[in-house]
């Protein structure tokens, strides 16, 4: 996979981001401390720190990487881990837990080398690979089915600490994975969590992933899920973004075999001064694959959210079928939203479409609900839940779905909306 395919933007802006050595100095120290290879360092420098001029990072909180300085978090305090797990209602015995990027209880640990080609062209994924040499490894053998919850917790000792959790998943041919991810951490501390989920779906495999990010209110989160989808495999991903100061979630899907499918859905809720940056890149590199993307955002207070979704159809990936829909709701005058749904098509026998809207709650709907006696705050809450509901409906597990719908309701309540 050449860098050119990824729009060439990294190549063009490289020079600008490497000139400033000062910004990279403390990363260099971290690389040396982790004894990361020189190859990885060169790749990281070449890709450059995220900058506004790079299209993929256009709406990101890029100052956090260049202006702040970050130190690797030490192993987390056991009591703090237990307390957060219990708050999240997770059983450590049946869950795979990573704390500050380290796998607890040495459950399935292995090499961190990136499987997904897309990760090689990604600066922060490269940083993750270099700084976390040991990844949590989940392997699901041919024909098997596995259900597992993975919790990645960041519990730093102080401000300015970073963690680079890495999770590598191999779903063998015909296997099924039902995985839930929770990204959470200390309330009140300024930390940076940069998790990478690298998942490969073998021929005919199916993976259902539900990811929830509810980091601490000062946290910076930059997470990537990279999926390599082989022939006839299917990925179903539902993302819920609920908390953090600045949060970026990226989904990179490469269809490397024919007749693959990916259903991506994401919901993001931002209040306060939260900055949310959601990006997807679905690359149809093989014929007859089908992708669906459904993203819904709700922004309150001074929150800002951007959605950048890209569908790439390679030459000869005939029969590609890609649809993308993104909608954002602004609940306050001070909230802002941006969207950049992008199509890059190099084959002719394709069906590709996207739709994007930004607006406020429909006053006609609000009036209808109120005219039937539903108080204004509850009416707004109902409409927001319905709006987000489209995304949550993609969660197959009913109890998990209901719990998440409740979360949206509680989020609205927390904003002074709804009973």
């Amino acid at each position, binding site marked *: 996979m050449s860098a050119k395919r990824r729009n060439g933007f990294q190549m063009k802006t490289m020079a600008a981001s490497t000139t400033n050595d000062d910004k990279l100095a403390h990363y260099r120290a971290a690389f040396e401390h982790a004894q990361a290879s020189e190859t990885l360092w060169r790749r990281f420098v070449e890709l450059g720190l995220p900058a506004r001029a790079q299209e993929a990072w256009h709406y990101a909180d890029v100052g956090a990487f260049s202006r702040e300085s970050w130190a690797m978090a030490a192993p987390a305090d056991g009591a703090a881990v237990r307390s957060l797990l219990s708050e999240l209602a997770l059983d450590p015995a049946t869950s795979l837990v990573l704390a500050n990027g380290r796998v607890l209880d040495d459950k399935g640990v292995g090499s961190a080398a990136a499987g997904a080609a897309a990760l090689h062209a990604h600066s922060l994924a490269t940083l993750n690979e270099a700084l976390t040499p040991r990844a949590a490894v989940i392997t699901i053998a041919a024909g098997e089915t596995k259900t597992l919850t993975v919790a990645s917790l960041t519990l730093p000792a102080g401000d300015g600490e970073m963690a680079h959790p890495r999770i590598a998943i191999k779903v063998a041919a015909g296997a099924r994975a039902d995985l839930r991810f929770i990204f959470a951490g200390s309330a009140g501390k300024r930390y940076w969590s940069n998790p990478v989920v690298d998942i490969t779906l073998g021929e005919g495999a199916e993976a259902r992933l539900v990811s929830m990010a509810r980091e601490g209110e000062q946290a910076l989160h930059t997470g990537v899920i990279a999926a390599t989808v082989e022939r006839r495999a299917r990925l179903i991903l539902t993302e819920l973004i609920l908390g953090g100061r600045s949060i970026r979630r990226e989904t990179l899907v490469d269809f490397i075999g024919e007749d693959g499918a990916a259903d991506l859905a994401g919901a993001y809720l931002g209040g306060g001064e939260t900055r949310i940056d959601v990006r997807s890149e679905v690359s149809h590199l093989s014929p007859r694959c089908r992708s669906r993307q459904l993203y819904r955002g709700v922004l309150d207070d001074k929150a800002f959210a951007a959605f950048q979704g890209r569908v790439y159809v390679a030459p000869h990936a005939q029969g590609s079928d890609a649809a993308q829909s993104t909608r954002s709701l602004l609940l306050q005058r001070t909230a802002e939203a941006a969207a950049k749904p992008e199509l890059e098509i190099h084959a002719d026998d394709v069906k590709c479409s996207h739709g994007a809207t930004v607006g406020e709650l429909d006053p006609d709907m609000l*009036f*209808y609900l*109120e*005219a*039937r006696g539903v*108080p204004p705050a*509850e009416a707004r809450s109902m*409409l927001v839940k319905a709006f987000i509901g489209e995304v949550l409906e993609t969660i197959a597990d009913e109890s998990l779905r209901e719990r998440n719908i409740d979360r949206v309701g509680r989020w609205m309540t927390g904003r002074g909306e709804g009973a």
Partner: protein
Amino acid sequence: MTVMLEIKNLHTTVGGREILNGVNLTIRAGEVHAIMGPNGSGKSTLSYVLAGRDGYTPTQGSVTFQGRDLLALDPAERAAAGIFLGFQYPVEIPGISTMNFLRTALNAVRKARGEAELSAADFLKLVREKAKTLDMDPEMLKRSVNVGFSGGEKKRNEMLQMAMLQPRLAILDETDSGLDIDALKVVSHGINALRGPERSLLMITHYQRLLDYVVPDVVHVLAKGRIVKTGGKELALELEREGYAPYVGEAA
């Protein structure tokens, strides 16, 4: 008979244009009134003012409902107080099932009226029973509110909501529009079932067709923002025969 609704000298401006200019109307408990008028006479505006829609705030006059100042209440409080507006064009709300919507609305209204919320079982029983009287397929209740409903289905859904919420004063805006004759009979049946000494009806309509099935006690003609004539049910027939032309001139 006690007074249900009293409108005095009501003026309303919408988008900089005066639509209502001095409406006076008194409806007593148990009465059925019909307001008829040509297009653009202010009929729908009157219904929105009574239900409290944003942008339809009166510039002058008063509206008293069961002795309370109606204009001081927000739309949900008016609904709880017993005002029901049957919309001419009910809005579609994706993502909220009709069932969930009905239940939320009913419980909100009951709570505001100081009544206990209905249990899930009681609610289900009630909604099924009401749906049946309106010839509605219970499957429809699982669908999102009005989404993909035909014109007739939307109007039946309005009637179902009215039956569930048991209002004191139902304002029905062009409820007959878009209905075929069978649907019209079912909807009329729904309206008549609600009639009683404790309830009043205000039907807003362009044609008298609905009035064959729901016979009014009083008929008003609204033209150019005010009531220009009031009479018995025979007035509706007269309008049907002679049209609105004489009134359009009179109010000018």
